[in-house]
Structures are given as C-alpha cells and as structure tokens.
C-alpha cells in the first residue's frame, strides 16, 4: 500500500464534488420521483469516492470499511424509497412530484 499524493487527493475530491453537485442539481430539477431518488444514489456515490480517496491518502482501511455501511444504508434507502414511490404512484397514477405539491403546505 502506497499513499497517494495531495495532488491526487485533490483530483479525486474534485471528481467527487462534481458528482455530488450534479446529483444535487438532478434532485432539484427533475420532477420524476424515481429519478429524484436515483440522484440521491449519485450523491452516495460521490461520498464513496471521497471516503476512499481520503482512506488512500491516510493509508487507513477504515475509509473502505465505512463504505460498506454506506452501501448498506444506500440499499435500505433504495428499498424504502422505491416502496414509497410505488405507494404514491398507486394513489395518483403519476410519478410527477408536482402532483403532491399541496403537501408543501
């Protein structure tokens, strides 16, 4: 195991930040419920790259261990989010997030 340099760390963090920003923009702009949850998965992915990059920089395996738990939470989140999406879809017969806009209060 060799540690990566600060230049490499910065480059990986740049990619991670770009993916996170794109996921955030997707979550805010898309109106399809499924795509909105897909964008949260993109943000998980960005966090995963950042964690592994920091783990490689500090030569600490715990960055990778933590990613296992992130993966667990992401899987649980996907299952619950999709169940919610299916339940919402059955009510209004549409995946449009705008049809639930009266819930904003």
């Amino acid at each position, binding site marked *: 195991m060799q540690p990566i340099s600060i230049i490499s760390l910065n480059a990986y963090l*740049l990619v991670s930040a770009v993916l996170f920003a794109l996921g955030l923009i997707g979550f805010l702009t898309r109106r399809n419920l499924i795509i909105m949850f897909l964008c949260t998965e993109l943000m998980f992915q960005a966090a995963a790259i950042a964690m592994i990059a920091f783990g490689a920089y500090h030569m600490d395996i715990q960055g990778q261990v933590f990613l296992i738990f992130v993966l667990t939470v992401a899987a649980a989140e996907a299952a619950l989010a999709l169940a919610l999406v299916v339940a919402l879809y059955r009510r209004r017969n549409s995946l449009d997030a705008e049809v639930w806009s009266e819930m904003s209060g």
Partner: protein
Amino acid sequence: MLNAGIIYAACVAGAVGVLLMLPRRGSQLALLGGLIGAASLGAALLAVLNVTQGADPPVGERPGVFFIVLAFVAAAGAARMITHPRPVYAALYFILVILASAGLLVLLAAEFMAFALVIVYAGAILVTYLFVIMFAQQAAEEGQEANESAPYDLSAREPVAAVAAGFIMLAALLGLMYRGTGQLDSSSVMNAQAAARMVESDPAFALLVQKAERALADQGTLEPGETVAWIESNDREAWLTREDSASAESGAGRLVTLPGDFQIDNVERLGLSLMSEFPASLEVAGVILLMAMLGAVVLSRKIQPLMTPAGGTDTGSA
C-alpha cells in the same frame, strides 16, 4: 491565487453548460452545453493537477491517464443521467457512472469495494430501480405513444435556481477543499510513517504479524526466539526482535525481506478491520437491512377489502 480563480471560473462555465443540457421544450443547445461542461471540467482538472506545483513533483505523484478518462466518463454519465428525458436511460447512465467510479476505486487500491459497488449498485439496486421504472411506464404508456417521454420528464423544474444552488455549493466545496488540503502535511514519507504507526496500533495487526511469522518460518528466515515486531508499510520487509531481555532493552533486531508471495491484500485488511473493530456496527447494519425489508413489504402491499362473514366488505387495516 490563479488556480482558485480558474476553478471558480470553471464552476461558472460548468453551470452554464449544465443549464443548457437540462431538458426543455424546443431546446437544441444540449450538445453545446455538454461541450461547455466537459471543457470546464477539463479546466478544473488542469488547475487541480497544477495546484501545488512549487518544485516539480516527482514522477508518479499525479494521477495518470486512466484517472482522467474515468473522471470524464463519470462526470459525463452523471450529467446525462440528470438531463435525459427518459427514466430508463437515466438509470442506464447511472450504471455507467457506477462503473467509472468503480474504476476510480480500483486506481485507489480499493478492489473489494470497487467490485462490491458494481455488484450491489449496478447489479441489485439498479435492477430494482429499473423494475419500478418499467412498472410505472407500462401503465402510463396506455394513453400515449410508446416512444414518448412523460410530460413531467420533458421540462426541468426551476432550472436556473437549482443549477445556481448546485454550482455555488460546488464552488464553496472546492474553495474550502484547497484551503483544507493545503494544510495537510505534503510529504508522502511522513504519511507512510504515520501509516506504519497506525498499522501497529490496529488490533488486526496481531493477525497480520502471525501471518508474517508463519511465512518467515516456512521460508526458514525466522530463528527460534525471534518475533516479528512490525511490518514495514510497503508490506515487503519485517523487523524482527528477540524475546530475551538484553536485546529488548537495546532495541536490537534485524530487518528481513518477506517472501515474495507474502502479501496482505485489500480483502484481508478490510475483513480484519471490519471484524475486529466494528462487530457491533455490523450487527446494527443487519438490523437496518431487516427493518428496510419489513418496511418495504408493509409500504408496498395492496390494501385488499376483506370479506366479512356477514357478506359485506371490510376495508381491512389502514
């Protein structure tokens, strides 16, 4: 601070690019937006790779061509995923992002997590997403043409405000990142020493020492009474000490080269750390998965009206 200026300018240009790519009725500028976005990512990468160029950094300090390619594929896949008007294609582009970032993890020597990511994300989670997308589309397509996107997929919601929010956050993240990583100690040698100390304080280290001792004993290098004190962080050499008190006081010992086939691979390190340091977290993770499974079953069941013995209907539970 020329580099910071380049990065902020790249954020602005990237915002314009993503704005042009977002789905809008009658917009023909998506390709132009993609080109602007790719150019700004390239500019930001160039600025990052030159950011600490005081003296010439040694060869191998910078990420190679594979990193550049995978970074562009990941960013392009992500941009296409949030802008594609058809959900199935968005999910497929997300698989592309996963494959590219798994490649990045392989470059970072995290092989196990790279393949776990491909199997769990691209395999399991994305297939679930595709099932739900197709379940919803099949019902929706009765009223419209087969090849047409749903109207709510064709226009973005508040594109200017969302892109501004996202890229202001990106600029803030990158600005803070350079201020932060500039304060890390830049010498790889110091990192390696710190890492060697970390390995010694690791509870899993005892198991690695046993493995190294077995390997050295098989090779015949380990003399009776000697034990492995630590393994160098390059995994190639070990420091041997004698158990008797005289040499323990003087700190005497010798450095031997480990056998060529001795290696501590990524899965081994990961498993040792997971099982020796986080066993309770592992149990909690199992409970989380069980709860998610129960929750998904409860949430997605259909409410069936039950026949009551009197012949009327009961609405069942809420």
